[in-house]
Every structure is written in C-alpha cells, then in structure tokens.
C-alpha cells in the first residue's frame, strides 16, 4: 500500500511540474492552479503514507528533486561558443575600496554576531512562550539574524546605517536580556 502511495505521489509531483512548465510557457493561470492542485494532492498522498511531519518534508524534498530532474531533462542544447577575451585595461578600484571592504566585513562578522546573539538572548529570556520553546526558537534565530545582518552590512550603500542599526539592536537586546524577571 505504501509503495502505491509513493508512486502515486511521485506521478502527481511530476504532473505538477509539467503543468507548471506549461503555465510558464503559455502564461496561463489555469495551468498554474492545476499545478498547485496536483502538488497539493501529492502532498496529501505523502501525508497519508507517512503522517504530517514526515509527509510534508518528503513532499518538499521530492518536489525539488522531480523539478530539477525535469529541468535537466528538458534543457535547451546549443552549439558551443568560444569565450571572447577582451584585452582592456582593468577598471581601477575606487580609493579606500579595501578599507571599506574590511570595515563591512568586520561589521558583518562582529557587530552582526553581537546583534544576533543579543536579540536571540532577549527572545530566549523574555518572549511570552514556554521556556523550552523560547530557547529553541532563540537558537534558530541567532544564525538567521546573523545571516541577515551580514547581508545588511554588505549590501547597504551607506555603511553607517547597518553599523548604527546593529549596534542599537545589540544594545536593546542586551538591555531586555538583563531585565529582572519575576
């Protein structure tokens, strides 16, 4: 029985990817709706076979794999082309480029970590949730917030904004974490 459910889910997933591609080519919404419906049915089969926690994970992982195999199999083949290498003088870097890069890196790494840990600790200690839930979500928040802080530090056009922002987040987070608790 489980084997039938797996095969059925994979077939439906393939159908969903195929329908999505048709929707992409023809720009027709009904094919997209059909694709979502087929993927939903596939997910139901995965859940029926493996229960919700495992079934949803299997639906997502198998969906990714089926889509990738489909795209690789339908790739457009083109004749090879030589790379044209130009011989032009390289564009000189703006003055202070390396120093700014170093400053961005340190902001991303150190200040970002400080802000992420402070925000995580504040959540772990002050969020209105059960203790273990607070701790686990805080644990997941720290690397996520640090990653976002890294992006902010690297992508901001004006570096003072992430520097000030992360310093503020870190300070507020520390203050919340240090608040006396009843």
């Amino acid at each position, binding site marked *: 029985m489980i084997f039938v459910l797996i095969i059925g889910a994979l077939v439906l997933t393939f159908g969903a990817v195929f329908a999505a591609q048709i929707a992409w080519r023809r720009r027709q919404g009904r094919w997209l709706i059909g694709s979502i419906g087929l993927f939903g049915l596939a997910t139901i089969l995965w859940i029926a076979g493996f229960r919700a*926690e495992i079934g949803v994970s299997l639906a997502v992982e198998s969906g990714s794999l089926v889509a990738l195999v489909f795209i690789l199999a339908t790739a457009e083949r083109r004749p090879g082309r030589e*790379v044209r290498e130009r011989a032009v003088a390289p564009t000189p870097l703006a003055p202070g480029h390396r120093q700014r890069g170093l400053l961005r890196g340190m902001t991303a790494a150190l200040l970002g970590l400080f802000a992420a840990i402070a925000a995580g600790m504040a959540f772990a200690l002050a969020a209105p949730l059960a203790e273990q839930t607070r701790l*686990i979500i805080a644990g997941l928040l720290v690397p996520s917030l640090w990653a976002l802080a890294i992006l902010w530090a690297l992508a901001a056009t004006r570096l003072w904004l992430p520097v000030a922002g992360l310093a503020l987040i870190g300070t507020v987070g520390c203050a919340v974490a240090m608040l006396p608790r009843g």
Partner: protein
Amino acid sequence: MKLAIPRAFTRALLDAHSTLGIVFAALFYLVCFSGTVAVLADEFAQWERPDAPRVTSASDAALIRAAAEGYARARAGGSKVETLIVTAPSDLLPRMSVTAYDGRDERTWSVDAAGHVLPPASAPWAEFVREHHHSFNIPDPFGRYLVGIIGTVLIASLISGLLAHRRIIRDAFRLRRGGAPRLAAADLHNRLGVWGLPFHLIVALTGSLLGLAGLIIGVLALVAFQGDQQKAIAALTGPGPTADRRAAPLPDMRPMLATIAARSPGAPVTSVLFLQAGTRGQIVSLTTAEPAHLARNEGWTFSPEGRLLAKAGFTDGGVGMRIYGMITPLHYGTYGGLPLKLIYVLLGSGLTTIIASGMSVWFHRRREQGRPAPLGERLWEALVWAQPAAYAASAIGVLLLGWPPLPLFWGTLVGALALSNVLPDRRMVRQVLRAASGGLMILAATAHAPSLGAGWLGVGIDLVAALLGVALLYRSVRAGPLPGCRAERRRSDGRSAGGPMEAGPTGW
C-alpha cells in the same frame, strides 16, 4: 499592479552575493561536499567493517548486559567512566556498541545480540567522513564553530541569491547547455539554486545551529544561569545528575524499561545514556525509536531508583521540543530510510554544483572583462576535482594499509593544489584530476570487493563507486588529448583539441 523592485536593491544584493561566494567558495564547497558524503556515514561504516556483528534488535536483557559488561570492562581498564552509552541497533545501522568516556579517553566495544561485549569493530574511515563534515577534524569546539559559521554565511548567500534574482519567474524553467559558457553556468546555478532552495535553507539553518549550539548555550548560561552551562543545558534537555559523587553501582534498568514499555508500547530502545555513571548522583537517559515522527526518537530521563523524572517531548511535547527533536534528522535526512538519504545525496550534489557553477560564472566574467585569473581557475579546478580522489585515497589507505585517513585526505588535497600550480592550464588540471579521481575510486571499490560478508549494501557501494570512477575516467578521456601530447600535435589544423565545449572551468 506590478511590484517594482528597485534595481539598485537587487544590484546591491547581487554584489553581496558575489562577495560572499568568492570569499567563502572553498569553505562552502568543502562543507557541502563533505555533508553530501556524510549523509551515508552509517552505510559506509557497514561497508568498511562487514565483519562487525550484525544486530537487528536488542532485548531488554541484552541492553542490561551490555551496560554492565561495558562498565566493568572500562573500570578494569582504568577508566573512571564519567559517561556510559549503550547504542542499540537502528533500522539504518544494525550494529550495537557500548562506549565509556571519562573526560579524556573514549573506549568503544562492539556488542552481540545477547549483549556480550566484543572487541571493537572500529570504522576509522566512516568516522573520519562524519567528523570531517562536523568539524573538519579540528579540535572541539573550534571546528564545530567554524562549520556553524560557514552554515550561517551560506544562509546569507542563499537569501541574497534569491532576492537578487530579478528574472526568477521569467527564467523558471530555462536551462541552456552549451552556447556561451558563462550563460550556461549561470542558468545551471540559478535553476539549481531556486528549485532546491527549501532543501538548501533547511540544511544550512539546521547545520549552523548544530555547529554554533555550544556557543549559544555558553552565552545563554552566562546571561541567564550565572555561567552554569549544566543548568542551561538542563533547561532544554531536562534534569541532569546531582552533585552527589559517592560511589554507587550502576542502576537497575528493569524498572525503567518496564515504565517505557507501559507508556510507549512496542517502541524499541535505541540508546541508554548513564551520566555521572557509578555515583549516587547519576541519571539514566533512554531514547526510544518513534519512526512515525520526524524527530525519530523520544527521550526519557530516570533517577537511579528507576523513577521517571522527565520525558523530553520530541514527539508530543511543546512546539520548542518538537522542533528541537527534528533538527538533526532534518539536517542528515535520517527520517525516511535509505531512499530519503539518497534524495539528500542528490540534492546535496546539487548544492555543490551550485557553488562550483557560481565560481564558473565569476571566472568567465573576469575573462570576458579582460581580467582572467588563471591561477585562481586552476586552484579552483583542483579543489573541486580532488575531492573524490582525496576520499578514495584515504579509504584505500585505511582498507589496504591500515593508515589513518586524515593525513591521507589532506595530503591528497594539498598535493592536488600544488599540482595545479605546476600544470599549465585549467583544462589539464581538470582532466588529470578527473582521471586520478576515477582511477582511485575504481581502486577503492576493487580493494574492498573481496571483503567477506559485505552484503548487498557493501556490494552496492562498491558498484556505485566503480561506476562513478568509470564515468570520471570516461569524461577525462572524452575531453580529448592533453596539450603537448602526440595526438594533440597531429591536430595541426589550428582548431583547439577536441571534446565537447564545456560550460566553464569546472566543466559543468
């Protein structure tokens, strides 16, 4: 109404994505490739030691005997035995073992189905594969922190890549092979990146948490528990041992096993952990298999008298504990048997391809801009194509010569990087290392093949390794004769040496 994303925003994110990719490419590749291989660490352990006693289930009597004999053996050997772990068989690894740890030394023995302790059936190569991904074999905690940091930067790279991709819908199914190498590499990079994103985010987030857990717990202990790490850990995992270190015998496990049988009928015990073993303050933690749940296990903590102190709640507790129980299975793909592990291997290979194709895009763009980086290209080719060779070489060293895998692995990698410095172009680096990898994989499969009792798993791994080795050799030969050899000189009509146009420096 169309949502207009400012070009400056996506430009800035693309620059950030490029910066992260270029700076961390080598570390990303090492972690992701090693993770792809480490998914099958349990299978490699069985492949490496087919002679180890096969145990498919452990009775209560076997668990009790294994704990008693393991403890006695460790104490007789001079160990103080701070921690004792009995690892029962699982559906993924039909082996049983007992480990005694005293803070400095760790001793492990195999256990047979009756619970009798046997000489250890160590699998150093499989252990190396695991530890290489966990920490690059750098001493705790620094190695784990490094891997955790790489995971965090990978999250940033994934998010920036997604947000910078303006044509994500327009190019959703576009994949051009051949043609302009940079475009082909970019298509592969973007398609794999977008469609595999759920998997990539899950493994990056869980991996960074697993790596940085020690750091996070340390800070939490400092802020909320006056520096007491045990209290911080206990807040999450339940009660720990008390301070009473007066000598006491190992607790009787029968009441504990009876409690578990009553509360979770039919759930097999997968491990027994004695903390502060042999003292009055000791506690015993048992885990039971829960295959219907993504967490895969439930935890039970008992006092030495056999009283249930706490149930972890991985399967039916609060949201936090259920998420906590899912983190490791989600990261390693251990919740769906061997088929899911193979899906993880394929998706993990996709992630390594994303990293390689990303660098390919960068190198091609530099060439088109008149700023080639030939040394960088050769070093990158060496890093990418020496990985299979390094793993195969270390396996051969362990199987045939009993040599430790760590120096063989890094020696092969460093040797390949040095060789790339000597070889004149990136194509030759790629061809030579593909051929070396292919040859070494075939040799590893051949060296292992005569192992008695390898079973279908061992034969399957040998076959796959041999087939991959043949494929690598074929790709290397098909790329045409190397520059400077006789066949190359015969082609004097001005065309470059044959072989299909490849998408980039890494031949993707």
